[in-house]
């Protein structure tokens, strides 16, 4: 195997870099129709003609080589550091045929760095629709490059692109304009001071606001001291530079591109008139949310009950047909019910991801950003915080990563801190099962009470996020400049393949991620529940028999009593008893207590944990739902899961910070343990207090 060609995909946000990356490498990185989907480097391998291989790097989108947010900085850091192991042999600049003018700005800057460049003009399938035609040979000549016209939707032009990459040595490294003309004396001086350096690179280093973590510090310091101009002057010069570049681009496109406006159709304007309307826009947003919750509830209750009963029969079957013994009961009482507690939620999770990914692919997300910016600003957030808050309904981890796109550090930090309040998919299982137990089934104007409760819980999550943002905004003394520029992408019909892949991938990782944890937990739980210390556990049968001697119980009832007596005196029962005083004021028994404790590994194991505990403590296998409905509150009598304790549990899960992985990501993104620890203690204490108040008021 020869040396791999190192290729970097660079371009403005939302031009289809990741789509091209996926087409070249056959991978399935996340694609979506709003700027800022990719926030970190992703790599893959591409097979080129004649047995050559290329190492492809997908990068976050950037409008120019002047970074204004963390994700953009990744690109600049790479391009300015020739010693970086990923420094590209060839840069592929991806542009969108509809926004060519703006996309070429970045292209001309990269050309100035004298890196071999291929220009990809993507979304070629839209040319007809927009009445655009291009003179490719002319553009290639003017821009000193090779052009590949591609459409990842129609799978066109990818082979040609591979051919160009394989022949990258033939590319010119000549800049396509001379930017230093804007202030000749200044640039001449600069070059004289650092004769061995690339002029444009020096200029970038001088004008960069952000820190260059990895670039060679000494070199930069030396250059950065060579200011000789005030900040305001430098900014003015940058403005001049931008104007100069646009002049060149306008000249080029005047000849190289023609747009037949009569042939152009614009759906965007019509749709935007409604979707971003002052009042209608908000109404529609609300209706979309309402529909999602109704759908999650109504469409999935049938498959859910079906899966639930399958797992109950499976347990029963294993118990009856395998030889009795420790392994059989581990399987029937530990693992199967535990896994069942995850698998029954597949339908809802899949629906949730389906909706989120359609919202992301259609281009609607940015409209929500527009609608919500002013409201969010009141609370110290940015309109851009809406994206993490909405995609946080899938999972807080990618949502927190998505904040890298927010320019202001303060707004970004606040968004990171409050995002875990949004109802993530791991809370959904807990909500669904509790709601189905304690909220009646009726309907009001076609909407089920249960679906409305679910929606209310989501609103509570957003509400908590926004209110804590407000408080944080008042408390945190951070000054950072804020500004807000959002690009509104074109509406696109979601691509079936992208949506389907997202749904399948996300559902799979939900099931396997949670599955692994619950497998471990259910084995441990089963063990702790099936064994116990001392007399009480080992002689359970005799003790119970003498206790109920004159009650004339049937054999079956007696067995049941023995099993639950044993459970109470097992290791897990004793642990549960120990924590019971803390949680009984909230209306929970020790079994729920154990489930809450195991939820700190991951919330979604709540139901599975309960299923395993119940299964060991009883003789017959039943569906999880029936079992929970049959539990009796040990202190107050009556069903354990009633309205008061149900609401208290729902609120506890709404507010508590029970996710190790989120804490780890917050630590990484904020670079300190202070914030995750603060999150953990404040959110969990708050959850406890609210649940306590709710139960005491309602009981």
């Amino acid at each position, binding site marked *: 195997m020869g040396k791999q060609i190192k290729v970097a995909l660079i371009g403005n946000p939302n031009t289809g870099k990741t789509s091209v990356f996926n087409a070249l490498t056959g991978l399935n990185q996340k694609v979506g129709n709003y700027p800022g989907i990719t926030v970190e480097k992703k790599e893959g391998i591409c097979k080129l003609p004649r047995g050559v291989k290329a190492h492809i790097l997908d990068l976050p989108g950037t409008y*120019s080589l*002047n970074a204004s947010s963390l994700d953009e900085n990744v690109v600049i850091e790479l391009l300015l550091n020739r010693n970086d192991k990923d420094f590209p042999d060839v840069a592929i600049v991806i542009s969108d045929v509809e926004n060519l003018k703006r996309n070429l700005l970045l292209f001309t800057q990269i050309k100035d760095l004298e890196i071999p460049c291929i220009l990809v003009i993507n979304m070629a399938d839209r040319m007809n629709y927009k009445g655009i035609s291009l003179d490719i040979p002319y553009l290639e000549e003017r821009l000193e490059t090779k052009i590949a016209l591609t459409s990842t939707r129609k799978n066109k032009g990818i082979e040609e692109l591979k051919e160009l990459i394989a022949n990258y040595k033939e590319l010119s490294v000549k800049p396509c304009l001379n930017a230093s003309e804007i202030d000749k004396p200044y640039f001449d001086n600069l070059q004289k001071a650092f004769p061995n350096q690339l002029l444009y690179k020096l200029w970038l280093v001088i004008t960069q606001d952000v820190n260059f973590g990895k670039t060679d510090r000494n070199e930069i310091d030396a250059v950065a001291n060579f200011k000789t101009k005030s900040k305001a002057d430098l900014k003015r010069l940058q403005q001049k530079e931008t104007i100069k570049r646009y002049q060149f681009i306008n000249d080029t496109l005047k000849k190289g591109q023609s747009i037949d406006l009569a042939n152009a159709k614009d759906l965007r304007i019509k749709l935007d008139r409604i979707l*971003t309307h*002052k009042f209608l826009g908000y109404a529609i947003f609300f209706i979309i949310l309402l529909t999602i919750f109704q759908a999650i509830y109504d469409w999935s209750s049938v498959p859910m009950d079906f899966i639930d009963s399958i797992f109950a029969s499976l347990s029963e079957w294993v118990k009856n047909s395998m030889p009795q013994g420790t392994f059989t009961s581990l399987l029937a009482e530990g693992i199967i019910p535990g896994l069942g507690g995850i698998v029954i939620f597949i339908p809802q999770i899949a629906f949730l991801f389906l909706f989120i990914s359609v919202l992301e692919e259609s281009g609607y997300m940015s409209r929500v950003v527009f609608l919500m*910016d002013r409201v969010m600003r009141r609370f110290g957030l940015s309109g851009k915080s809406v994206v993490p808050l909405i995609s946080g309904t899938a999972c807080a981890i990618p949502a927190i990563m998505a904040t890298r796109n927010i320019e202001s550090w303060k707004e970004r930090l606040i968004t990171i801190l409050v995002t875990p309040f949004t109802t993530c998919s791991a809370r959904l299982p807990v909500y669904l099962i509790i709601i189905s137990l304690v909220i009646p089934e009726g309907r009001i104007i076609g909407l089920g009470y249960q679906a409305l409760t679910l929606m209310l819980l989501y609103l509570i999550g957003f509400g908590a996020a926004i209110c804590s943002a407000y408080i944080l905004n008042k408390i945190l003394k951070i000054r950072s400049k804020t500004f*807000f520029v*959002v690009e509104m992408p074109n509406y696109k019909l979601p691509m079936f393949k992208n949506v389907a892949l997202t749904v399948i991938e996300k559902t799979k990782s939900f099931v396997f991620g949670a599955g692994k944890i619950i497998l471990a937990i259910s084995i441990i739980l089963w063990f702790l529940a099936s064994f116990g210390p001392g007399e009480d556990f080992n002689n359970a049968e005799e003790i119970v028999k003498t206790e109920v001697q004159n009650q004339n119980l049937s054999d079956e009832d007696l067995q049941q009593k023995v099993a639950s007596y044993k459970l109470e005196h097992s290791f897990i029962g004793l642990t549960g008893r120990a924590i019971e005083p803390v949680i009984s004021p909230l209306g929970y028994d020790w079994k729920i207590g154990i489930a809450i404790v195991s939820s700190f590994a991951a919330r979604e194991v709540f139901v599975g944990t309960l299923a395993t505990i119940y299964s060991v403590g009883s003789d017959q296998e039943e569906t999880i739902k029936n079992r929970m409905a049959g539990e009796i509150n040990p202190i107050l009598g009556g069903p354990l899961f009633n309205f008061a304790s149900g609401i208290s549990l729902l609120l506890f899960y709404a507010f508590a910070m029970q996710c190790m992985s989120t804490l780890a990501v917050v630590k990484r993104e904020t670079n300190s343990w202070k914030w995750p620890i603060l999150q953990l203690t404040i959110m969990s204490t708050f959850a406890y207090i609210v649940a306590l108040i709710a139960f005491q008021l309602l009981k």
Partner: protein
Amino acid sequence: MQTTLAQLKRGERAIIVDVSSIYVPLKLLEMGCLPGNFVELLQVAPFADPMYLNINGAHLAIRKETALHIIIEKTNG
């Protein structure tokens, strides 16, 4: 008549005359908000903030506070 971008009404078009290099982020300039280019106000959120614009063919939303520092000359139509 010269005024600021914040004064533009829905559906109106104008030519950009001057952009403050201190108050307006470079990013916006790079997206095409430069003297000589046209701008059209497509939509406004409540209280006219943020504003949804077509600047030189790019569809962008910016806040009113930024629009205050962009000088325009209204054209008709």
